[in-house]
């Protein structure tokens, strides 16, 4: 298994170089180093000299990908800005703040929201899906599916704005937005977490229902029933266990990405997490932050896929990683 993990880690290097290159190209197609300088210095009374000075100070006075003058790849913006990423040295944002410090500070609010949403959402989706599977082909199943489709069709933004309006504005139960550390975070996270869980029921419930129904059509389920086992025992003890592989495929891969935060929820609820950090960086044309967040996102995604593979061996002894 160790050899498998090492091989996968080595595979990750060219992927990360590619992701970094694509991010770089996409960013600099839209923003030139001059644009970045103007964004930081403002538009009033900025002289061409000031722009050149800013670029030189921030390492943006070099060619983008190929230094034709010195015939080298290394004295370019791409090389100089990318190499350090592989040592997880993110450097400073264009406004001077240390990126690693920002990430370390902002990951906690993101996790404080994402982890409960993930766990509660997963439990609720599985429960709801099993409920529908248990009552398959009845009116309960029919209306459950209708509800799921209806919930899937509604935009997340609608859940957020509607939730804020009802829970905070009309019923005055929780703050409409904001964040605080420690236990105070609970009152700020209750509403966004609830909304995120509810917004995910539609798609999650349908997906897991399909998995369970597929499992329930297998021979071992018929055998279990023939043995006289109660339907609840069949479902929880046999079907759920055997449906774990597809559940894990979907669930484990997102675990590392929980760290990245939610772009929409964090923005609307004023949660100072990594999702809003990324959005702010894109708006501020802060390449240092954008490339760092994309890099971290890619690393986490690769880690998620690896974890998924490893988790298969835990739930299915027949699988061997070589």
């Amino acid at each position, binding site marked *: 298994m160790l050899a498998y993990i090492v091989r996968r880690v080595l595979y990750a290097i060219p992927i990360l170089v590619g992701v970094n290159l694509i991010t770089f190209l996409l960013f600099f197609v839209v923003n030139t180093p001059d644009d970045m300088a103007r964004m930081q210095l403002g538009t009033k009374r900025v002289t061409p000299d*000031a722009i050149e000075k800013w670029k030189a100070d921030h390492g943006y006075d070099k060619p983008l990908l190929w230094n034709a003058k010195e015939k080298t790849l290394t004295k370019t913006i791409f090389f100089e800005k990318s190499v350090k990423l592989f040592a997880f040295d993110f450097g400073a944002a264009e406004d001077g703040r240390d990126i690693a410090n920002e990430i370390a500070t902002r990951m906690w609010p993101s996790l404080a929201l994402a982890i409960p949403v993930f766990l509660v959402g997963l439990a609720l989706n599985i429960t709801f899906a099993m409920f529908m599977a248990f009552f398959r082909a009845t009116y309960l199943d029919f209306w459950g599916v209708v509800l799921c489709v209806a919930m899937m069709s509604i935009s997340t933004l609608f859940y957020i704005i509607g939730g804020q309006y009802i829970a905070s504005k009309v019923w*005055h139960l929780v703050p409409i937005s904001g964040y605080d550390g420690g236990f105070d975070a609970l009152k700020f996270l209750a509403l966004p977490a609830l909304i995120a869980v509810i917004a995910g029921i539609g798609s999650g419930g349908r997906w897991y229902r399909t998995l369970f129904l597929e499992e329930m059509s297998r021979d071992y389920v018929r055998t279990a029933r023939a043995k006289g086992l109660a339907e609840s025992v069949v479902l929880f003890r046999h079907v759920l266990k055997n449906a774990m592989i597809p559940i894990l495929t979907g669930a484990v891969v997102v675990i590392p990405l929980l760290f990245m935060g939610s772009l929409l929820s964090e923005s609307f609820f004023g949660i100072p997490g990594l999702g809003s950090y990324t959005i702010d960086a894109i708006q501020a044309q802060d390449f240092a932050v954008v490339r760092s967040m994309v890099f971290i996102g890619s690393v986490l995604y690769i880690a998620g896929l690896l974890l998924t593979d490893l988790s298969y061996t835990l739930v299915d002894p027949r699988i061997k990683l070589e």
Partner: protein
Amino acid sequence: MRILPRIFLIALPFLVGCEGAWNDPYSETARRGMTLYSSFTERPKHLDPVQSYTEDEARFTQQIYEPLLQYHYLKRPYELVPLTVLDVPKAREVEGGKFTVYDIRIRPGIMYQPHAAFVSENHSLGRERIGKLKAPQELPLGTRELVADDYIYQIKRLAHPRLHSPIGGHMNDYIVGLAEYAKKLKAADQGGWLDLRQIPLEGVERVDSHSFRIKVRGSYPQFVYWLAMPFFAPVPWEAEKFFAQPGMAEKNFSLDWWPVGTGAYMLTENNPNSRMVLERNPNYRGEPYPSEGEAEDRERGLLADAGKTIPFIDRVVFSREKEAIPYWNKFLQGYYDSSGIGSDQFDQAVRMSIEGDVGVTPEMEERGIRLSTSVATSIGYVAFNWDDPVVGGYQGGESAERARKLRQALSIAFDVEEQINIFGNGRGIAAQGPVAPGIFGYREGREGINPVVYDWVDGKPQRKSIEAARKLLAEAGYPNGRDARTGQPLVLYLDTVTRGPGDKAAFDWYRRQFEKLSIQLEIRSTDWNRFQEKIRKGATQLFRLGWNADYPDPENFLFLLYGPQSRAKSQGENASNYLNPEYDALFERMKNMPNSAERQKIIDRMVEIVRRDAPWIWGTHPKEYSLRHAWLSNDKPNNMARNNIKYLKVDTEKRAELRAQWNKPVLWPIALVVLALAISAFPAILSYRKRERMAARPAA
């Protein structure tokens, strides 16, 4: 399963909050003393006064840093008054007018806020100790008196090679020796702390511990206005040395994020992602609340605290609100003391009578919310690129005359009043020239109208008829919107920035204005960077732009049309590249004059020239509307300065009472949801039991 009720019981007090309403977003600590609650949308990029230039940053820096001068809080037109100086410095010409000298005397006894930088032991902390710090205030704190050297140090910082001061280039042209000083500093810079005290600057001279002198090239009367901006606020050398220690940058401890000032407030919590907190500076000397103001200020209660020592407020909590809906709702719930009005909330907040009087809606009135309006010292306009062969005026002769008539025709057809009503909810006034109201040189009434576009009818300006515009268009050689020589329809191009899908309606409206003259308008919308690039290269025909005044002097508006400031030729602020030798000559004379009848006469002539030449479609001076709750007093809009918090006052008891009244939790929906879940579970339970009791499944 028993654990769930336990978790709920533990969590309940936190969900509810120890006191106050359930939806109160503030902690107990934030509610201490007289606290003002405000918000910010964009995180500040810089809090270092040498770099900070935006309004988002000024709302923090101007409470903390004290430049030499400030604007009188109540008087209008804006008037400079001393802040840390004994008197407003007077310009003194030397060497036959080759230079101007400003002698500055600082008031003795002004102390800095408590800060770790003033304790010498804190200048050699070591990485390990710094690594354990959460904020610089955790260290032993000290203070010292403000001296002239601190201002001199900051002026030198304008040329610092690693600090990118947005006005560094501009000041190089004026402060004697500043450009050369920048070169010296670059040569001396070896990373780490650059001790500017060791390198003298020719144009700034220390006279004694509380006096210094600034020498400016030529005559630059507007220089005093710069002395009221944070660029000219004092920075103690100790602060730079303290923050230059290894390990500080990794913790985001820098002067850019932890300001050190003498102002009424000091920054005690700096989380630009979520919350910024200012607290009263215990070393602040106190200032008397102004005793004079505009005629109506007494009636508005703005002089009720005259002579009392400010500041009144102990603490200011700024919460970050990126979205308009939560921000507005929190204001209505009483969690923000004042608020701007977004276009989506305008109808809910403001009502206009048929006579044009503006007030709050009954819903707002019921909550005691009051409205303040003020015309901003800014202008939004549509510019013609002077270098364009169709609409520009560079060609001279007959072509220039044709283009001038075309611009005039378009200025008439472009109905600014309608634009303000449709897209600005009536919040603005149509501009008659480049100078904004409230600025010397602006003329009200009949003598202030633009005769090219308006007639004076029944005591008010009336836009000329579209027929007049068509006549001008025909004289320009485009009868019915077609080129008389080629017969081809006239197509014009407007460059603008796309902000979102909502722009479509505005673009359609723009097209309709041009269609009135049968002219086709092609809108080339792009992002901000490309838009700016096009303007810099002069690759535009028409474009939308705006200007927000730096200081209340007509020079700050009229220089936007000064030829040598051409954006395409010299990267200056004249984005339309307008060039008129007479205007330029008058500008040269006007810019160095004190406000006087003669200056007014020159301004009148300059305005007359540009009205006739019409290099811009004179757009809008926006009107700013803001709402405040009944418990907030002494609030007067100030477009020139943001150091207003020290004047504000909050009736905290009234606020607490109203907040509790407005935010009583409604609990019945929780019971209803539980009941609904129980009822909906009932058929499932029945069905489950029925299934489990079935003897066998019916045959398929």
